[in-house]
């Protein structure tokens, strides 16, 4: 498989995602500059990494969402290509309306960086194909604007479409207010688009794919993508 990581001015997890994907999957991972209009035709996965694109000024992800590469990503997603937005990448995808909702300031109004656990809600997406429903993954969060918000009507639709892929939970998988680090609606930590090929999530799988970093669970998401692609003849 061939993965691409988009670099915006202010991205700061781009190298981390490259390192994590490349070491876990032993596959070439290249970067893409935000000013490009098109994605390379050999792309199997495009990742929008975390960071502070444009300093997170105005609204997180808003300025990056107007970058030329987003047009390319839209076309690519419409054709079924796999797109993953992590943290700031998630914020960019919501601002670009590739994913529903918006990410607001954490309920304690502070930046939160800590290890977290999320429960897998769906396994029929490319990103979770090798996981179990109810499985708990340990992955850290690091954000100031991670409170996932949807107006009531949109929320109904998102739930009806089963677009929630990850929810914040306790170590044993309990989803409740106590285990909601940032105040997200319904403990939502990750959502997909209706088609299921665009995923946004706040926790950082790339920070959890090596034992020495405290967790390898993020690597399971990479494995899922690789497996899903392999089943479709892409290696």
């Amino acid at each position, binding site marked *: 498989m061939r993965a691409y990581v988009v670099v915006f*001015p202010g991205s*700061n*997890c781009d190298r981390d995602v490259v390192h994590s994907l490349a070491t876990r999957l032993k596959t070439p991972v290249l970067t893409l500059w935000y000013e490009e209009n098109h994605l390379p035709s050999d792309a199997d996965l495009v990742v929008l990494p975390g960071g*502070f694109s444009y*300093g997170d*000024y105005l609204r997180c992800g808003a300025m990056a969402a107007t970058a030329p590469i987003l047009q390319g990503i839209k076309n690519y997603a419409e054709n079924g290509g796999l797109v993953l937005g992590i943290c700031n990448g998630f914020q960019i995808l919501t601002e670009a309306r590739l994913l529903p909702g918006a990410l607001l300031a954490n309920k304690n109004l502070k*930046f939160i*960086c800590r290890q977290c656990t999320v429960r897998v809600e769906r396994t029929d997406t490319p990103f979770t194909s090798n996981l179990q429903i109810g499985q708990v993954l340990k992955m850290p969060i*690091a954000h100031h604007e991670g409170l996932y918000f949807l107006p009531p009507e949109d929320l109904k639709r998102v739930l009806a479409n089963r677009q929630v892929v990850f929810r914040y939970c306790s170590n044993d998988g309990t989803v409740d207010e106590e285990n909601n680090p940032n105040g997200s609606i319904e403990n939502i930590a990750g959502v997909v688009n209706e088609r299921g090929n665009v995923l946004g999530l706040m926790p950082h799988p790339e920070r959890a794919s090596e034992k020495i970093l405290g967790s390898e669970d993020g690597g399971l998401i990479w494995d899922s993508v690789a497996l899903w692609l392999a089943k479709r003849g892409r290696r």
Partner: protein
Amino acid sequence: MNYKTVGLRKEEYLAIKKMLGREPNESELRILGVMWSEHCSYKSTRSILKMFNSEGKHVIQGPGENAGIVDIGGGWAAAFKVESHNHPSAVEPYQGAATGVGGIIRDILAVGAWPTACLDGLFFGKTPNNSTLSLIEGVVAGIGGYGNAVGVPTVGGKTFFDDSYEGKPLVNAMCVGTVHQESVITSRTAKVGQWVVLLGSRTGRDGIAGAAFASTELAEDTKSSKPQVQIGDPFVEKLLIECCHELLKDKLIASMQDMGAAGITSSASEIAAKSGTGIHIYAEKVPTREANMTPWEIALSESQERMLLIIEPDNFDKVKKCAEKWLLECALIGEITSDKRFRITNHGETVVDLPAEMVGGGCPVIDWPSQKPAYLENIKVEKKYEVPQERFKELFLSVLTDPNVRDKSWIYEQYDHMVQTNTVAGPGNPVSVIRIKENGTFLALSMDCDPWSCWLDPYNGGAESFLKAARPLWACGAEVLGMTDCLNYPSPESPENYWVLKESVRGLAQAAKDLECPVVSGNVSLYNESPGKKILPSPLVGIVGLLRDLDTFLPSGRMEAKDILFLVGP
């Protein structure tokens, strides 16, 4: 305009006249006022700093450059330094702390290193009241707000509470970077004919003459002479890091300086002095944020997120192109000359013409009178303190709930301590351990200080400040490579303060020397006083150690039921 207004002492003014053989003009006087301030010239501590040993088998570069550098194997090196931002943080906690982080990261960048990790040392008042609480909140948010956005993890630090810091908090920021030994950049390598390029933000009236005006009354207060709060822009800093590293990779930078206190003046004069050349700055070519800035304001502005690059003229177009890619301003503002002068002209008119060496290095050293404080005579150290049985629980709980002992996760959870995916042991551990992807080794980092001991027994307290920082490194199995320190003290003009300063540094230096930990960089912050109050002597120590692999690393907190505990030591 009089020498007192710019914060100079009479003997310093006379020295200037003698060196120049004439009266300095107004701009020159303002520039020398800042450059000969305590903050820039170390005039009160240069003799004290000589006590430090800076040699050791791992040392590649000792004090004198932007950061100390030590060998970490495989051709790679670690660059590190700690710096204070105490005065700005007292005025504006968020921006003061944020720009402190930005400043130390640029120091690391200036030697050509990639900033890999930050640590922060914070000292606050202990009694919880509104102003202390909002100050703490502002400082912590500022450190996080900046470090998180630039993408440098804050992997550890030190927080200390005592009421002597009320109204005068200490904010010390340390950064560690990695650099290939062959790619180290210095300020000694500028050559005649090379161009001087300003990269980064536009120049505004931020913090002009902050260093000098802080110690004088603002006599003739014109609007422009009032220091303005410096605002940090971590977004631009991130772009600067990326851009400089792209330029370094393409070997387009001959020499480089960050711009901290005294902005263009200190960075430009330092390059000239160290390279044994002169430098000529064209004030009108500096891109400014505000109209009508005078040449001396341009020369002294402390606007953040700027770097001074020295490049070959032929490379200018490439440098400019790279700057455009990273959305940065880039302007040719001067050239390296052969006359060893620091010269500023404005539209052809000479504004400043001083010997380059005199600007940064000319200030005469002051040896303040020193006297052992009276209070030390009256201190009785009780060797034994008996705890009455019935008060045991109460005292034990009071220790556990003391802010100095209590868990600090409310601070460090606001810092991204994992970005760059190297953090093997983050904050909350006695040592922080980061992986060095470049050579497969690990760095063990610690930061500590013991102000109470320094107050009770300056010599041994200084030694203990070193030992507190070094012990966890030894205990975890790391090899100590070198240290940096930030000497935070009250005014040296009081003989008793000066004595404590000298004694505690003597103890610190001796312990570090005896235990083979060279001092490769550091910083001094004096005059930490608020009305009626002065801070405890606070020499903060940051140490970098090496773990060749994780098998040699002994983490703390790996305990199980039935394990046997030993207490080792006196």
